[in-house]
């Protein structure tokens, strides 16, 4: 398993998180603060452009140049370990780092762009950022600190039937670097276990993609939602209450489109969707609106909150 550091993090902002579920970022910050981790957020960091790139809107050279700029920023701020809130950022930045380190021709092209723009100081040197040693997903950092998280949880969540949805771009793309299982991903399950939650370890379609497919949701909407529906129905069969996520794209697909699918099939599915950071923050006692940001969810989360507040202080 790769080494996960515990300091000098650049918490990488995500466009989809900030636009759709800003509570994911504030929950993560809440947890990091409670854990006393050394991290910064930089206003100069730009969108990774992964979403646009995977949707065939941006070409690879541009996206790689953007990555080089962000890597340079992280290094210059002496927080070279990039920690991603979104699996798209995770996958595209790892890919870009590999390209910049191994493809001399592309690295030269990227550096020429910087030089032409009068930004020589942002040039990328081979080896500046390593895909395996400097780029992580937030969930990996949380997993690394799960014992401490265990001690900080205040609520007993064992009444909920919770299952996990692992992001494809985390598990399946750079699978040599995936932590805690590729064919049966258990990263979110083990993390949830730290909060005293016994998840549904396996269900039919556990490994199925959310169906988002970046532009597929727009260009092939029916097909995209078919895929989403498969997993939701399987979860319904298992009587799952909450589905935990690690990527805003998946969360959008399930949370925003579950009502649409329910209307299509004329059946209620009734599953609540939360990012694992939101769940952990809530479980540590964070405010549901100012920290977890549940007001931005399509499937209203107040019903589970009521259950939350009832099961207080059975403590650890």
């Amino acid at each position: 398993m790769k080494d996960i550091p515990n300091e000098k993090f650049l918490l990488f902002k995500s466009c989809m998180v900030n636009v759709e579920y800003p509570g994911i970022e504030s929950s993560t910050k809440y947890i990091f603060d409670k854990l006393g981790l050394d991290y910064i957020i930089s206003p100069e960091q730009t969108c990774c452009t992964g979403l646009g790139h995977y949707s065939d809107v941006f070409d690879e050279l541009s996206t790689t140049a953007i990555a080089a700029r962000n890597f340079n920023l992280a290094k210059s701020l002496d927080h070279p370990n990039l920690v991603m809130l979104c699996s798209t950022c995770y996958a595209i930045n790892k890919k870009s780092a590999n390209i910049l380190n191994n493809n001399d021709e592309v690295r030269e092209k990227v550096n020429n762009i910087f030089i032409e723009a009068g930004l020589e100081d942002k040039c990328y040197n081979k080896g500046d950022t390593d895909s395996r040693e400097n780029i992580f997903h937030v969930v990996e950092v949380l997993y690394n600190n799960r014992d401490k998280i265990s001690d900080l949880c205040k609520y007993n969540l064992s009444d909920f039937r919770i299952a996990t949805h692992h992001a494809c771009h985390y598990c399946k793309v750079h699978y040599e670097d995936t932590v805690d299982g590729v064919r049966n991903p258990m990263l979110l399950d083990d993390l949830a276990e730290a909060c005293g939650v016994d998840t549904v370890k396996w269900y039919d379609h556990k490994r199925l993609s959310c169906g988002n497919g970046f532009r597929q949701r727009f260009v092939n909407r029916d097909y995209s939602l078919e895929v989403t529906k498969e997993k939701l129905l399987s979860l319904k069969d298992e009587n799952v209450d909450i589905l935990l996520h690690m990527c805003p794209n998946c969360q959008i697909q399930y949370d925003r489109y579950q009502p649409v699918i329910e209307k299509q099939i004329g059946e209620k599915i009734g599953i609540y969707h939360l990012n694992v950071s939101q769940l952990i923050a809530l479980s540590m006692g964070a405010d549901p609106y100012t920290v977890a940001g549940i007001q931005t969810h399509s499937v209203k989360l107040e019903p589970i909150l009521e259950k939350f507040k009832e099961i207080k202080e059975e403590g650890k």
Partner: protein
Amino acid sequence: MSIKSPVQNKSDIKIGVFICKCGGNISDKVDIERLKEEIDAEIIEVYTNLCSLNGRKIIRDNIISNNLDRVVIVACSPISHEKTFQDYIKPLNPYLMDMVNLREQCSWVHPDDANITDKAITLVNASIEKVKQSHAVDPILCQTPNSVAVIGAGISGISAATSLARQGYEVFLIEEKPSIGGHMAGIGKVFSPVKIAEECGLCLLNPVIKNVVENDNVNILTNTTVKSIDRRAGTFSVVLENNPRYVDSDRCISCGECEKVCPVEVPDEFNDGLSNRKAIYKPYSQAYPDTYTIDMENCKKCGACIKKCSMDAIYLEGESENVPITVGSVIIATGHELFDPGKRPEYGYSRYEDVITQSELGRIMGVNGPTKGKLEKPSNGEVPKRLVMIQCVGSRDEKPEGHKYCSKVCCMVALKNANIIKHKYPDTDIVICYTDIRTPGMYEKYYKHSQQSGIRLIRGRPGDVVKKGDNLVIRVEDTLQKKFKEIEADMVVLSTAIEPSQGTKDMAKLLNVGLTEDMFVKEAHPKIKPVTTDVKGVYVCGTAQDPKDITESIMQANAAASKVSEIMHDGIEVEPFIAEIDNEICNLCGDCIQMCKYKAMSVIDDELFIDPMSCSGCGKCLTICQHNAININGNVDEKIFATIYGMLKDKKPGERRILAFLDNIGYTAADNIGVNRVQYPDTIHIIKVISVNRVMPKHIIYALENGADGIFIGEYPGDLMYSEVERKMNNIRNDILDHNMDPERLQFARVYIPYFRGLADKFKDFDNKIQSLE
């Protein structure tokens, strides 16, 4: 030009030079009379055909009547006739002779107007200087004890042991389990390469076991593991650990009364855990040795069995015994294990009872198995209505923990099991989901037969197996029809990959034998030297070497036995040009052991030991040893210096001389140039070396400083030392620069035997380059 000889001048040595006209092949182009005048030797004789019996008489008579000390034969290539002339110069030691190649590497490769005779004179001079440095050396005879250790008593080990025993060797057949027979004992039915039918595996195995048991030359040691192995020349000192059986096999009559009263039940590994056995047990009825054993890890030591045993054969306290043996050779036949289907969680092996492996299916269908041969679902004992087989589980898999290789036998195993089921249960539908059906040779006919039996085949690798209600659902894409299918079935069988066993990996470590990237035992050269490992005297056969079926295992076992017999028969004569250690100087730092690519060095009894059978004389250890404790027999250093001196000492001003050092492969390629009459410049003078690694910077610098215009080095890329030599070249070029000379004068090239035109071109190009440097 007169240059100083770099080695001691030995003027009192009497040398005889014998020149062969080679029926005109040499004498038509070389001016023999001028050659005779220009060289300096005690005796110079010319003859038309030196290799003939008359030639032998001339050489021998001259040696004896003139008390000659050394001989130079000026003739064709040593590759053709070295052994002949080494014999002809008796009573002189064979290593006191050198051959000058005036045919393949002189008269056949230069145009008429070239300075052929001058070159001939140079080459003969070089040879004369070289033989002055030669010493008489005797070949080393390695005798091996006439005994062999075969590790592993599956079909491969048993076959190898029987073959060796029948050839008169003493064999120790070592097996870690309580009985012999390996995987084949539990396989149920086996497929026959020629009959379109399945045969009883145990019926085929039993006579094989009987043969090895009855052969007096074989010592079978079961419940035994290998603790340590020390290798020294042709001998292996092996320490075995014999673990107690807790049942005296001489007394046990296999009545089975003890088993009835034993209170402990544990999963039966013979039936893949599908049924239970007792702590005191016999693996299967026909097991050899025919005795019970106690699994002490699970035994509760209640003593119920002791009370029941009428032969007083049971004891509950016992210790392992160390058994030392000495053998001349070791055969690794440690077999395989199967891929853990838990590593493919999507197939539900650990979740659903009715998802099983082919091995488990084999036990179920076996008449001596947990269901006495009835096809019963583990969950409820009913006959399945539809059975789906999934191929390539763990094989042809590039994802983490998968194996990229193909396990070779699973297609036939699946078809075999499918046919057995179809015969007995024609109403059970069988679907095989395959990647490719690999049934080469005669097996193709079996495949056709299977299709005709109604077995269905879908080309696609299933994604999931899930349970919906009472049934299992297999999701697969039928890639030939380009349709996604969901197959409802009530039983799934996984064809799992063959992997190297733990025993294989352990033995490789003990013996210092290399493993491939897939962790099977690595052969010295998989194409041309099968069953041989990179450690001399150690061989491998069966699935320890790679996945294969029973027939191939038997073949390989016999091959290994044959190789062992070769080294045992009369001992091995080893060329003496190997490394020698001065134990007074050696401080056992171990640097040489690490560096030796031939694994020739080890520490035995606190002394460094160099195995003459493995040492190739490459000289790497020489350069590594910081205390100069190593010396290589045969004076190669001095001989190289002397050859260079001889090549350059009479160089005239304005002449161009290029020295080309070639290994055996390169030299053969150069001969090929001659055989094909391809031409190259006469500036090229070829020097044959045992290993290119022996040509050191000091030789090259000396040559360049004393008249050589260019140095050409050719090595075969398949040589174990190739990459090291290639790296060395750059360092040598820097050395040349430090001596104020042009590094371009050193050329390194790859050589291959058939690539002789390429070599001739390289010679021409290099000569042109050197010319332009002037």
